[in-house]
């Protein structure tokens, strides 16, 4: 059981403290409840581009100085953007707690005075290179983007990936940056988690000192989009410079934390986690028709998704792979999940959770996640309960209900020059 202290400042900033003196470190972690799902069409990729800007200085911290302050005392830091949230974090020697809070509060409260067109133009180029490096210049790089495009309608904002499109990145303006900051980067849209080697009273005093004078935002644009049923399988075949055919599938699930999402998580382990899991065993090990298989779910707040992929061995058709996947799903639905599989899947969930809690950085991050998504940091202490209580029948039912053609998008990547 983690001992958590939670409270809210007058301006609405949620604070969670976990005092732990194992290592002489503090992990400071901020989850802003804004991500690519809060972008508007024509400005995709903006939440992530904005994240880059928040490292380029604020009123009292020069350009690139945020990195320098942290690194020069032996700290590590970064940030990341996903559909639902943007996080910023640093792990510092514990005697530098005040430094970290000063840096984070400066960019939360005093970012705009330091904003310039020049910094924005540089970061826009950096982000375009990020897109080229991870999406456009590598095999299968656009697979996730294509699958999302297919699985969601344009009115549901999981339809595009956080990196956004080149065109939209090019169209973003300095005014967009100002508006985005003013709208979303407020203390009452943020959870601050601090884990590590500090005295709780000292941390409270410092947090009060640095954050309490930052004005709240009050109201935030409401998220009202609802995902509509697909109305039948959506499929796409795409040829590109890859050597081996690969199939990608996205099955819709309820949002993160819902019972069927938890069962979906266990189901993904039963399907593909190690050599003994179903798709691995049959496709990769026994039939040796697939080079690799994967199944996992994403921690998404507005709607859930189970992702599945498999790469065909050289000379094996993608039809063979797809038929084998469907056969294994049918077998699982008909014969049911075994007790041994349940034990292995629960164990894996347990060891993964234990790994998340093992170091301060990840522990702070998942506490931030639980507080942001479920309004309750204590979920970190009860997270495994529904996993432990799940039965084989629950998993089999979820497979039967959700792993059906009408509930999925399928994208096939084929090598160029091969008949589809």
């Amino acid at each position, binding site marked *: 059981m983690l001992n958590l202290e939670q409270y809210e400042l007058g301006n609405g900033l949620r604070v969670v403290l976990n005092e*732990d003196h*194992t*290592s*002489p*470190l503090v992990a400071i972690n901020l989850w802003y409840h804004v991500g690519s799902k809060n972008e508007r069409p024509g400005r995709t990729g903006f939440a992530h581009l904005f994240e880059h800007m928040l490292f380029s200085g604020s*009123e*009292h911290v020069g350009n*690139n100085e945020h990195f*320098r*302050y942290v*690194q*020069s*005392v*032996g*700290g*590590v830091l970064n940030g990341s953007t996903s559909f639902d949230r943007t996080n910023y974090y640093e792990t510092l*020697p514990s*005697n*530098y707690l*005040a*430094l970290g809070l*000063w840096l984070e*509060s400066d960019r939360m409260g*005093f970012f705009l005075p330091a904003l310039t067109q020049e910094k924005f*133009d*540089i970061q826009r*180029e*950096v*982000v*375009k*290179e*990020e897109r*080229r*490096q*991870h999406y*456009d*210049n*590598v*095999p299968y790089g656009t697979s996730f983007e294509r699958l999302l495009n297919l699985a969601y309608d344009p009115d549901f904002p999981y339809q595009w990936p956080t990196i956004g499109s080149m065109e939209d990145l090019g169209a973003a303006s300095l005014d967009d940056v100002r508006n985005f900051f003013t709208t979303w980067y407020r203390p009452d849209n943020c959870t601050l988690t601090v884990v590590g080697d500090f005295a709780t009273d000292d941390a409270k005093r410092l947090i009060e000192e640095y954050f309490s004078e930052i004005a709240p935002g009050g109201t935030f644009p409401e998220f009202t989009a609802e995902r509509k049923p697909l109305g039948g399988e959506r499929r796409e075949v795409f040829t590109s410079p*890859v*050597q081996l055919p690969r199939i990608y599938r996205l099955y819709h699930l309820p949002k993160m934390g819902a019972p069927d999402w938890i069962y979906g998580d266990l189901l993904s382990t039963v399907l593909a986690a*190690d*050599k*003994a899991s179903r798709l691995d065993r049959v496709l*990769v*090990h026994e039939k*040796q028709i697939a*080079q690799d298989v994967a199944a996992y779910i994403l921690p998404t707040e507005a709607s859930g998704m189970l992702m599945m992929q498999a790469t065909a061995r*050289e000379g094996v058709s993608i039809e063979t792979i797809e038929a084998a996947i469907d056969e294994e799903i049918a077998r699982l639905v008909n014969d049911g999940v075994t007790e041994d599989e349940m*034990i*292995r899947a629960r*164990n*894996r969930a*347990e*060891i993964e959770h*234990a*790994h998340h809690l*093992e*170091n301060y*950085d990840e522990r702070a991050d998942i506490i931030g996640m639980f507080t942001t998504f479920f309004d309750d940091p204590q979920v970190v202490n009860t997270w495994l309960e529904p996993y432990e209580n799940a039965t084989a029948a629950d998993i089999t039912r979820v497979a039967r209900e959700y792993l059906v053609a009408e509930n999925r998008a399928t994208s096939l990547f084929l090598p160029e020059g091969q008949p589809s």
Partner: protein
Amino acid sequence: MTDRTKAPLPGPPRPYHFPDVTRTTLANGLRVLLARTHNAPLVSMRALIRSGADHDQPELAGVASITADLLDEGAGSRDAIRLAEDIGLLGATMGTGADWDASYASLDVLARYANQAMEIFADVTTRPQLPAEGLERVRAERLNDLLQQRDEPSMIAAKRFSGLLYGKGPYGFPMSGTMESVPKIGLDHVRDFYRQHYVPNNASVIVSGDLEPEHALKLVEGALGDWGRGTEPPRPSPIPKEIEGNRIYLIDRPAAVQSEIRIGHIGVSRSSSDYFALSVMNALLGGIFNSRINLNLREKHGYTYGARSMFAFRRSAGPFVVAAPVRNEVTKESVHEVLSELRRIRTGDVEDRELHDTKSYLMGVFPATVQTASDIASRLLDMELYGLPENYFDRYRENIGAISKADIERVAKKYIDPDRAVIVIVGNAKQVREPLGTLGYPIHELDIDGNAIA
């Protein structure tokens, strides 16, 4: 109002202690290192075999890594699937692999299952079945991997760069083997490699995490005490190629929207007495986010998402390399900027502040990198592999702290040579060929397998 104009001062530093390590050597020569941690109910087990792909014959490249891949394709009385099932029943994850210097097996497990997990760990390390059908499966998988790598620009760049530095010998061919070598690897090669190198007097075992050292030692003795001794294998040495002047090697990927750039030459071995000076110099040059090369290419010019320099410190001298993916239009400019930074670091032009910041980063960051049982096991593994002294981590700060500007200049001049560098570009030849020509270095065009294009 809070005074925000100055960074708050730190409190008094809090002491850090690397966990106590219990060291012992079993009668069969197996070195055992045990470290207790308290922050999670997890245990990490590691086996280190001090032989890796450096023992591969070029025509049989891939033997060491395929042997490692085969360790968990059946071991003791369990076949591959049964092994994976039993590992899963213990809430464990298992991995095996090899690099140039060594081969590894690792198992992470919930502490309450450590006893049973040790049996499996010992089976995989000392009683692998190395079955024929396992080899065929792994071989097919490997050949398909190699096929896929032909479309991955960073992989193409890394392979060509190594080949140009080391030729056909160790460090020059890919550790994972080639389309030519992998089909030639027979079960005898794998079993011979295993018999010769997987012997306790060529190995160390590390157990870290939520387990009392006395208990851990009993487990290790029980499971690995009867592992039969062998002959300690000889150590091969890679033979570097002579490089006469800067040469550009251009590998065309007609659809590329970025150039993968690799610039460098042969570096230095892990045992170098200049290791600490080189660590500081490289961190300042291109080893961390706020280093010169990254600030220049990314933050000043917006050419790349990230540029890095590194020394691959191996048992023999591994490469020194600067790596950056940049958009096609700025390929020449990026090469020019990297070479300028390599020249500048040799002039001794180092500011007090950047030296201070870099040293203080390296000295301060250590505790943040050893929070988990698995982190601690990795550090101990390094210690064992490179024969570092027992007080290495305690003296690390002091050794870094002693590095001066003169040291930076000295090691930069000694180990960085911007006039005898291999420059590999994997990119859109049509767009980058002409601008690169204006740099004045000879350009050799290669196919992705390294053959010259007439």
